[in-house]
């Protein structure tokens, strides 16, 4: 009796999520094996691996994979290193710590499209932007960031958004650090660096793992910043996998090839997810 009720209570969540997962995914798998272009809706036929072949041999593919890796890798390194440093910096009380914390985490709540537009126009514009002004004040020639260093510009925008997340997680984690242990180490003559290196860093190892994996999942499919600021260009220089698939599907109407690309993205994300789910599962007590 109790079991039936329990199941009934869980049923809606489980069923909708199951549908959400199975229906689109099986459609993607099906589409990836047929020739299907929205411009010629009549002619769908089975083509086997051809779509995958087409997607992988597309000259944009290797660039997109490279860009995706570079984007995910750089943002992870920037946010984790700076995140640990900054959260350690604001761990001890000082004047206005609460306000500093609020200022530091705010960029996370700025919507990605606004993020990209503010950076693109007001910060990085080569004529009127703040950077141009700083460069000129220093006697240098202003740089057109988005066309000279498109991927780097995207990395800056995305890091600006995700650094606050890392700080937020690490600050929370640091609060649970054993302060008596730190004091004992200090009594024994340990320097701040030693305490940081041998007590704080090991304490943060788990949060760091979690941050890396969660960010990786989100960063693999960065889209809005690219869509708004560079459109993947110039050329393919700032096209990542997500943008390339979008380009195939909604700009070239090539359903088959876009689906093949979509599945490649799913497989990549699953490799990351596998480790994340194991890490979370280990910690989960029911």
């Amino acid at each position, binding site marked *: 009796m109790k079991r039936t009720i329990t199941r009934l209570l869980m049923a809606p969540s489980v069923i909708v999520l199951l549908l959400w997962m199975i229906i689109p995914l099986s459609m993607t798998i099906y589409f990836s094996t047929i020739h299907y272009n929205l411009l010629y809706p009549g002619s769908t036929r089975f083509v086997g691996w051809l779509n995958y072949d087409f997607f992988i041999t597309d000259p944009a593919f290797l660039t997109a994979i490279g860009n995706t890796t570079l984007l995910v890798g750089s943002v992870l390194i920037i946010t984790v290193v700076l995140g640990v440093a900054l959260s350690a910096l604001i761990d001890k009380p000082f004047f206005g710590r609460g306000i500093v914390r609020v200022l530091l985490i705010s960029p996370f709540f700025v919507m990605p499209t606004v993020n990209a537009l503010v950076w693109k126009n007001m910060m990085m514009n080569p004529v009127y932007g703040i950077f141009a002004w700083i460069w000129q004040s220093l006697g240098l020639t202003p740089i057109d960031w988005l066309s000279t260093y498109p991927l780097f510009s995207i990395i800056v925008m995305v890091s600006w958004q995700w650094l606050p997340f890392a700080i937020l997680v690490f600050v929370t984690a640091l609060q649970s650090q054993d302060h008596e242990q730190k004091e004992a180490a200090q009594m024994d003559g340990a320097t701040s660096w030693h305490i940081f290196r041998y007590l704080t860093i090991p304490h943060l190892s788990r949060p760091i793992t979690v941050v890396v994996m969660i960010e990786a999942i989100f960063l693999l499919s960065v889209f809005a910043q690219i869509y708004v600021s560079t459109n993947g260009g110039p050329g393919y220089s700032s096209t990542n996998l997500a943008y390339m698939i979008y380009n195939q599907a909604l700009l070239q109407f090539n359903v088959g090839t876009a689906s093949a690309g979509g599945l490649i993205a799913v497989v990549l994300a699953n490799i990351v997810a596998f480790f994340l789910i194991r890490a979370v599962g280990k910690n*989960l007590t029911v």
Partner: protein
Amino acid sequence: MTLTQQKKLKTVLIGSLAWIIALVLFFPIFWMFLTSFKTEAQAIAFPPELFFKPTLENFAIVQERSDYLYHAMNSVVISFGATIIALIIAIPAAYSMAFFPGKRTKDILLWMLSTKMLPSVGVLVPIYLLGRDYGLLDTRTGLIIIFTLMNLPIIVWMLFSYFKDLPKEILEAARMDGATPWTEVTKVVMPLSVGGIISTGLLSIILCWNEAFWSINLTATNAAPLTAMIASYSSPEGLFWAKLSAASTLACAPIIIFGWFCQKQLVQGLTFGAVK
């Protein structure tokens, strides 16, 4: 210098450094806010102007030009709609998993988490085609459905961890006093976890409000929430940063303030309880 003096100096140095970094990182938001009160000429003034006579003109123009209020209403309806539906579906599930765990509860929770790992681009094509076939493209209903499903795993997880932390003794006492399951839920569990449910809802609203991938790809003029409306400002028809800033400020301000209030829930929700 004595040791206390040294310590004081260190605190001042650390504090100043933290303040400088925080101000630098916050600067783009501050600048956006400031620019929204400038005229277009002031907005692109070079060198940038810090002091000027503020105007509210931009906000009026944004409203007139892209019907800000309509898109804001879309954002509100979609975020709140998706959050409320997701809560209604998630509360029973989280309740039963927290209070009557079975052998497979853990597996189900982890499986739910795994659905969140499916990258949106992977299912863009089928969702787009299904939306087209069922007439859900560019409708609020379409986005509400997507956002409900997108956030459901996070919501179940957060509620599960709140329910699990409720003191079991109170529930047992209620049962001893002859409470039926229904009164147990409505009179004991709900009042005790109202804070948890509200902060879960708040997090869900933030995530919906800022979602950009589906909003951009599945909506056009009718159902576009603020994220998609702002994206339409990316095509430059001359420089109009002041108006862009005004629109952006209006779009972000409520959610930044929301975010300040639920920092802690954000950590728990997004790390699936792995960091507390």
